[in-house]
């Protein structure tokens, strides 16, 4: 039994239900489009890469959710629902991965404006990891070619202890 059959079995006039769902679909599509527009404006107006990333993540999850909700309300079959569920699932699964990678690269390369942030909890961890990597390189316990931030990142904090 599809969702549409269930709606037809309701003791309400089907035309009214259809009209209400059409209205909801219109609202959802409009909200999704406005979130995309907001991301575009944020991309232009925000000062650095990290802030721009904040703007672009809005349509990545919320916008696509609204569009998918509108699509499900318009095409009321289970087939469409499950495909769109997979689309949303993959989007929810992969958007944090790309955001994490881009954010980390942004922090490392210094594309963000440091005077615009209030708390920088990552700085202490990075400094700690760099110190440990340099110490390990000096004692010659672990062969590290370049004791730069890259090497510190790959080794990670707490793993760079010299092994005797």
């Amino acid at each position, binding site marked *: 039994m599809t969702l549409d059959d269930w709606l037809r079995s309701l003791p309400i006039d089907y035309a009214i239900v259809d009209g209400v769902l059409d209205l909801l679909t219109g609202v959802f599509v409009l909200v999704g489009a406005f979130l995309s527009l907001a991301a*575009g404006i944020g991309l232009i107006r925000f000062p650095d890469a990290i802030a*721009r990333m904040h703007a672009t993540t809005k349509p990545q999850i919320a916008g696509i959710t609204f569009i998918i909700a509108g699509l499900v309300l318009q095409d009321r079959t289970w087939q469409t629902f499950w*495909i769109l569920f997979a689309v949303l699932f993959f989007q929810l699964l992969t958007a944090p991965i790309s955001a994490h990678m881009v954010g980390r*690269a942004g922090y490392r390369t210094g594309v963000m404006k440091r005077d615009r942030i209030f708390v920088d909890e990552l700085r202490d961890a990075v400094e700690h990891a760099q110190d440990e990597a340099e110490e390990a390189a000096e004692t010659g316990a672990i062969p590290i070619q370049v004791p730069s931030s890259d090497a510190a990142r790959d080794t990670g904090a707490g793993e760079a202890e010299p092994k005797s």
Partner: protein
Amino acid sequence: MTEWVFYIAGAAFVVAGSLALYRIARGPKLLDRMIASDMMLTTLLCAVGAEMVYNGHTRTLPVMLVLGATAFLGAVVVARHVSRSAHDDA
């Protein structure tokens, strides 16, 4: 009757895509361009969905599925490249 909703939505998508294109062309760093191109792909994903709602078909659902599942790869690869060449002018 509700066609004007889709006209407004289409205009919003076009403006969002154009702003992303401007940031790709202008972006001071490679990372800004990557974020903008990621956002353009998301806009495309939303636009494909809205077009399906407007025309009442489901033929481009596989396009949405593949775009949604692989959109993150470009950003990840470029981010890896940027952090490898951290001290170059990325």
